């Protein structure tokens, strides 16, 4: 079966998560992605790990290896005129350039849409940046923590009223990067469909901050609609919706609908306290959570996670385990769906990685090649495809251009 994006040609200049994830989503669906990295150091994700055995090594970073599957890798210093000229030649033949070069750096090296559009009018150029390409914050230094905070998520998470002295809490990992990436992939695919229709490309300006702010559940609208601040210190209007500790781990106790609560009370053997007026409906249970929590913690602490999960689900109560990484790798459900895939890469060895985020009926997701080593495809792309001879390649390598 053909892959959905088998005809697409993409050039990526990406670091860490955002642009690399956008390109990975398309590469795993069949697009050809040529990833450009800085000579010498490469993508910063190469330095972040996790590393097999723990010791940092640029060819063994789990984050890099995950985010760059199915890509061809070249090194190129686009700040040098000879380097930019090679970028222009790669872009001349591409459908998409996706990058997350910081705006001040874009200005410095002259990476702008007008210039590339003249070379290739069909080019879709997607710029994924922390705050977008306009506005007073365009050029600000940013890291994952600051962007996730500026997007409005951190303030919602962390200890509540019981420990208000603790600060808001960052979500694990590179979530602002991933969200910039997947929203960037959506916008890029939209621009590609318009390119197919009209024969012309365009510039797509994606703001990670905006991608985050657009998914704050119902919390953002509490200000425009009610002038209420949404914050981790707020009380949940309905309960129970909490992680609780069992004998062997944690489970998320979740009853949204009344029938779910009733089924849970039945599962607990209809204890007398559950009939108290204080726990009459979900709003009352929210109001009187401190009291309810004591009863529930006592009961849950005597259960085991998987047993309670399955008993709850068999009664249509939407509990879920607080999965550890080991739980996920061992999950019979994920195994049956074949979610984790084995990828062998010469330096890092063979490991299991997260697989297809979606299953397509007609156009498979597939790993065709592992992430590239730094500059792995320089000869193939600059030599084979662009026709540079061996002497010129050696010269550019010596000069640090590639």
């Amino acid at each position, binding site marked *: 079966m053909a892959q959905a994006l088998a005809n697409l040609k993409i050039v990526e200049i990406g670091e860490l998560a955002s642009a690399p994830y956008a390109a990975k989503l398309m590469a795993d669906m069949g697009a050809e992605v040529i990833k450009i990295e800085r000579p010498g150091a490469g993508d910063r994700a190469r330095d972040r790990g996790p590393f097999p055995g723990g010791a940092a090594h640029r060819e063994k970073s789990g984050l890099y290896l995950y985010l760059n599957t199915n890509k061809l890798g070249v090194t190129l210093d686009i700040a040098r005129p000879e380097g930019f000229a090679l970028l222009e030649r790669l872009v001349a033949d591409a459908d998409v350039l996706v990058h997350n070069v910081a705006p001040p750096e874009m200005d410095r090296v002259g990476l702008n849409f007008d210039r590339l559009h003249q070379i290739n009018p069909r080019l879709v150029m997607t710029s994924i940046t922390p705050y977008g390409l306009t506005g007073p914050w365009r050029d600000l*230094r940013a890291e994952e923590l600051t962007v996730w905070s*500026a997007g409005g998520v951190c303030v919602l998470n962390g200890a509540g009223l019981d420990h208000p002295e*603790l600060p808001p809490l960052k979500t694990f990992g590179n979530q602002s990067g991933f969200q910039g990436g997947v*929203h960037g992939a959506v916008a890029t695919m939209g621009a590609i469909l318009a390119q197919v229709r009209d024969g012309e490309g365009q510039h797509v300006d994606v703001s990670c901050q905006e991608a985050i702010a657009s998914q704050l559940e119902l919390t953002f609208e509490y200000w425009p609609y009610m002038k209420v*601040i949404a914050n981790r210190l707020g009380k949940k209007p309905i309960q129970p919706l909490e992680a609780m500790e069992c004998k062997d781990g944690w489970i998320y106790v979740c009853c949204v609908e009344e029938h779910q609560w009733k089924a849970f009370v039945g599962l607990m053997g209809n204890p007398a306290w559950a009939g108290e007026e204080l726990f009459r409906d979900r709003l009352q249970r929210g109001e009187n959570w401190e009291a309810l929590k004591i009863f529930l913690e006592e009961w849950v602490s005597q259960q085991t996670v998987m047993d309670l999960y399955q008993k709850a689900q068999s009664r249509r109560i939407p509990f879920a385990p607080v999965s550890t990484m080991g739980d996920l790798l061992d999950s019979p459900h994920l195994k049956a769906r074949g979610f984790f895939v084995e990828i062998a890469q010469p330096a890092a060895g063979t490991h299991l990685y997260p697989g297809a985020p979606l299953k397509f*009926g007609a156009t498979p997701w597939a790993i065709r090649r592992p992430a590239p080593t730094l500059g792995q495809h320089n000869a193939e792309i600059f030599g084979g495809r662009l026709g540079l001879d061996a002497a010129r390649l050696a010269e550019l390598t010596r000069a640090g251009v590639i």
Partner: protein
Amino acid sequence: MARPPLDGIRVADFTWVWAGPYCTLQLAHLGADVIRIETKTRPCVTRMLPPWPGMKPGGLNRSGYFNQYSQGKRSITLNFKDPAAHEVARKLIARSDVVINNFAHGVMDRMGFGYDDVRKIKSDVIMISLTGYGDTGPYADYIAYGPAQVPLSGLSALTGYRGWPPMHAGFSYADPNGGVHGAFAILAALYHRGKTGQGQYIDMSQWECAMGVLAEGLLEYTMNGREPERIGNEDPWMAPHGIYRCRDRPGQVMGLTVDQFVAIAAADDAEFKRMAGAIGRPELGGDPCYATLAARKAHESDLDVIVAGWTAGRTAVEAAAILQAAGVAAAVVADNKFLSEEDPQLKAREYFVYKEHPEVGTLQHCGIPWKMSRTATAVRAAAPCIGQHTDEVLGQVLGYGAEEIAKLRAQGALD
């Protein structure tokens, strides 16, 4: 401006709650004609949840939750207890490019709108089901609610203060994450259909989409057999790296004063040196306790005390501005009030959308997180009232006459 990318693409949108509506919101943002199929007999729960203008509930059209995620869509109401409603839905599917739902596994099949039914109506249709667990596997029939999907995904086990129990993400993150991945998949399938004429079915599991964005945690386990420890706001490769309390206390939540915070991350020694200068402690840049990453990590708690001492005397906006002026990554830890009223960036980019809505008036909603240079990028209209477009869609899209519509309404098929 040229027409938006998905102009002329129609979406039969059977979704509700959040994951599905977030998916179809992306398609509406790209210009698709998204038609939400709703019913007054069992309205979307988000129509009944707060926030409501003036804190007053009432009716099905006043919720900020629904109105945020259904911008630019149309709404029709069909009561599937009446066979005539099925006929209307079949006609709509015949005129749609994409059919999407996020019901529990099997519900669409029981309604007679499983993929095998749908492709008989339209052979090149693209159909996607957004479910918690996916369509196959031993837990396919398990039920999934937004808040529980975050711990299920593994994100809770990875998120939390050092030495503390697992925490949440603070919102039902797996919902929008699944929804936006679903939108990407639909667009890829539309591209493929454009090349080949072939439609297809897409099985999306929110759980799996969420594991795709926490790969580093999973890989620590698959590469080293270790569960990653929770490290709060720290980072393995940067210090200082934290969220620090500031001087200002701009609001109240549940009777408690809310502190403001600033997030600060110094990526390398040079950035730390700039930071040390900006906070009036230039000597720290050369201090062996702090000059290198290894030294800063070894003395991180002392360093955090120094930084917190500096931020405590400033408002979050001041602290962020001073650090940013020195080229240090810093940001106000924004809440909804800050985003809505104070964030100069979102304002300058005209991110927010103000569209007249018949029942709530012109309120502020979050907009489209990208801009396109050639094709139009704009939210077309406020979210629809329930069934607002039933007559319009049945008449103009499906070719029903006014009398037929009146008859369907009289028999309850359009409730």
